[in-house]
């Protein structure tokens, strides 16, 4: 910076004094300004006047009467939860993201009305049965096995139920183990049809295995 080379002879312009005050100069530049200000009262007064104007702006800005809105924060938190990626347990995530709440609820209701009796029968008569069940709960008369990370304190009545294919390996990791009924059953690619209960935040809360593939 050529202006800094001859500071001992000339007075630094406002631009350099401001940059020095803003800590925007190199170490050498800042040192040159400091030494000049120590020796030149006229520049020191100029420097202080500029600092005073800056402090006036900061003071006026800080004095703006604004209160933190907890209501706004809660609104933001709700919206963030609603917009979070829906954690996929089985269905492609892009498919789940497109499911609006209304469609998901309507589909779940229609599905439940049409097929609940059939599911009950199929569970009793065919398909694999979980050999080890973690804690379970009921939503709209349907039993769900609680999944890891699910929060039991969340209200369940506003949840969505989505039917999907779930890899057996995912279920095993969630603590639901199937007894192999054939060699095919132990294949890592094996999947089962299940209703997945999605919480208000889009996370899977529970699962109801409907039938093997």
């Amino acid at each position, binding site marked *: 910076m050529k202006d800094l080379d001859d500071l001992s002879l000339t007075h630094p312009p406002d631009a350099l004094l401001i940059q020095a005050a803003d800590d*925007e100069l190199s170490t050498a530049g800042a040192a040159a300004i400091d030494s000049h200000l120590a020796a030149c009262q006229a520049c020191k007064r100029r420097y202080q006047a500029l600092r005073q104007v800056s402090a006036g*702006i900061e003071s006026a800005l800080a004095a703006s*009467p*604004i209160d933190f809105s907890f209501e706004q*924060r809660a609104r933001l938190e709700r919206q963030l939860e609603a917009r979070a990626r829906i954690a996929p347990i*089985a269905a492609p995530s892009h498919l789940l993201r497109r499911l609006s709440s209304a469609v998901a609820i309507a589909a779940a209701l229609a599905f439940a009305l049409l097929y609940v009796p059939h599911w009950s029968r199929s569970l009793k008569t065919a398909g694999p049965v979980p050999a080890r069940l973690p804690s379970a709960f009921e939503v709209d008369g349907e039993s769900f096995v609680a999944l890891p*990370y699910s929060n039991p304190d969340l209200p369940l009545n506003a949840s969505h139920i989505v039917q999907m294919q779930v890899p057996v390996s995912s*279920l*095993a990791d969630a603590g639901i183990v199937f007894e192999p009924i054939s060699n095919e059953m132990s294949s890592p690619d094996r999947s089962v*049809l299940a209703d997945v209960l999605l919480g208000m935040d889009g996370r899977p809360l529970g699962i109801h295995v409907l039938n093997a593939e």
Partner: protein
Amino acid sequence: MDRADILPLPSTAWKADYLEDTSVRRLVLEQYDRESLPLRRYLQFLGIDPETAQEVVHEAFLKLHQHLLADGDRTNLRAWLYRVAHNLGRNTQTAFRSSRTDALPDLTVNGDLPSQAASIEQELLDAERNRLVRAAIHRLSAAQRDCLVLRAQGFKYREIAEVLNLSISTVGENIQRGLEKLKELL
């Protein structure tokens, strides 16, 4: 159901997604707790009415959430937020770019109730001083005002350049000219 509909990801991917969602939400809310008030203050100081400023800031944080979920750059989220809020505010309200001093919020005595008459007097003097500074700032060019207010929020020149999409040297010039003009006005 077609085999292609079966998600091939193992369950660890689901957990990773969940943990990522949670950490992004937490990060957005941390930023909100830290930056929402200064951001609203910044927008209001530039002439945006309080309700609009509140909505603009809210929208900026929703955009931050999208940005983070899309693995956007996290190196300077504060500057990112100001840039987005600044642009949203500019698009929302034409008054943002005008010099309407009558749009400024009234100054009220801030803080705890003063216990002595001297402190009341001092506060009134401060309030009057602040009002004069505000009026003077609104006589600057929009670029000078933006740069000075961001500087007063503690941003470095390179960050101001990033927020306002200017070169660093232009930021320096705006700050210098703005301060010199304010010195004359006050």
